């Protein structure tokens, strides 16, 4: 069905910069500018900027906002103070993962959820249907632009204060008011800058002027996979549970939230399969959907620009999921050898 693709407030900048644009979750997004590999390296070595304004933002406010979210999100929201943030999951009754997201506590009675673009409507409906008196859920995605500025020199180049991961503060970047979120999806230090949508293009210009390399969704995917961050829709879905996915640490099983009983049961009996990160020992690149010969399939696969080999993740039987376990990926009919590794697949040595 033909459909008009949405464009972020920074769209014109991508066109001017000669980005290659692709449809992604209903948006026309840059997949690369100069190339995935140089962009990936820029983030590992210095500083890159991604327009992630396509991501959804949901505002949950009210005297019972905390109660609502504590009952719907897997992590323990009591551990998040105003100024703090938390990686957490929206779970269904079976313990499946509706979405993964970051919740920012704006003040004692107000939260901002940053969710995957592809799940924006699902998440909003999910929360909206479960709203309780004293909580107000709003989709505010269109009001904001969001730029992820990531890399070992990101904070220095932006001139923002250094702060611990999973915190946020109000700030300003060369005249543009921003919410500075110390979060990201690359495995590097950095921030995600949120600004009013109308200020998005100007914020992009300011960040570029400070030396950040424009990066597209291609590098975002290779970076997150080297860091072993799951991608919703690939590695985690409403049909997969967080215990099997290695996300048990995001589930406060001593609190009550949707699906917690199912998750307690999975934890008690031990998952039958686990999401395992692996690297290839032969020259071959695993891709999503390729069968794993020992059982299961690749949920994410790519070429690691830092390691120069094929890497991936996939669900395998627990007995095959230990680091060092050998596995084979069926690459278009040819079995190719690899082995399970510990998370993350790649981590830069601190200088």
């Amino acid at each position, binding site marked *: 069905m033909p459909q008009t693709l949405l464009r972020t407030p920074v769209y014109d900048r991508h066109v001017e910069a000669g980005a290659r644009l692709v449809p992604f979750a209903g948006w026309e997004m840059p997949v690369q500018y100069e*190339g*995935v590999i140089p962009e990936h390296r820029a983030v590992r070595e210095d500083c890159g900027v991604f327009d992630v304004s396509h991501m959804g933002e949901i505002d949950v406010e009210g005297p019972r906002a905390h109660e609502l979210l504590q009952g719907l999100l897997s992590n323990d929201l009591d551990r998040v103070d105003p100024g703090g943030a938390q990686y957490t999951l929206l779970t269904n009754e079976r313990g499946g993962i509706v979405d993964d997201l970051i919740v920012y506590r704006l003040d004692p009675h107000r939260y901002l959820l940053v969710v995957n673009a592809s799940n924006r409507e699902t998440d909003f409906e999910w929360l909206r249907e479960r709203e309780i008196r004293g909580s107000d859920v709003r989709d505010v995605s269109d009001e904001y632009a969001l730029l992820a500025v990531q890399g070992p020199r990101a904070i220095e180049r932006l001139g923002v204060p250094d702060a611990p991961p999973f915190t946020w503060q109000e700030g300003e970047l060369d005249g543009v008011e921003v919410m500075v979120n110390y979060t990201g999806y690359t495995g590097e230090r950095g921030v995600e800058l949120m600004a009013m949508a109308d200020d998005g293009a100007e914020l992009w210009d300011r960040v570029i002027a400070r030396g950040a390399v424009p990066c597209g969704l291609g590098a975002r995917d*290779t970076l997150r996979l080297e860091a072993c961050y799951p991608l919703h829709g690939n590695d985690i879905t409403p049909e997969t549970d967080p215990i099997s996915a290695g996300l048990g640490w995001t589930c406060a099983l001593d609190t009550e939230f949707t699906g917690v009983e199912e998750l307690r049961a999975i934890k008690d009996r031990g998952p039958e399969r686990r999401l395992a990160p692996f690297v290839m020992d032969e020259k071959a*690149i695993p*891709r999503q959907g390729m069968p794993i010969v020992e059982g299961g399939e690749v949920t994410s696969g*790519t*070429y690691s620009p830092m390691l120069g080999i*094929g890497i991936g993740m996939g669900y395998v039987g627990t007995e095959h999921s230990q680091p060092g376990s050998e596995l084979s990926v069926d690459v278009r009919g040819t079995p190719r050898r690899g082995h399970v590794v510990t998370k993350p697949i790649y981590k830069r040595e601190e200088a």
Partner: protein
Amino acid sequence: MAAAESYPDELRYHEQHDWARIEDGEATLGITWFAQDALGELVHVEAPEEGATVTKDESYGEVESVKAVSDVIAPLSGEIVAVNAKVVDEPERVNEDPYGEGWLIRIRLSDPSEVDALLDVDAYRAFLAEQ
């Protein structure tokens, strides 16, 4: 660094974005600037073995970038007499020099008359313009 767009006059082209340089009953084969640009920086070349045969319009190998994999289609039929080992070790050569160091294989033609069906540079450029 990727090469600038070009389509040498002396080559023959296939609509699957492959080129052939024909000399003395043999042909050197590779992918065109358009093909490497569409794929992006190559990170893997799955090359066939020397001595194997390739058939016109059929796949004889694969080229992969970070994001995509593509079959490489033989513009002509014949027996493989050389495989460019350099592009197997350094696939980015194809991006840097698609008609030179980035060649893929050389074949001895089994049916030289197949050449007549290939596009000349003007026809290939016209074909690209329609894409």
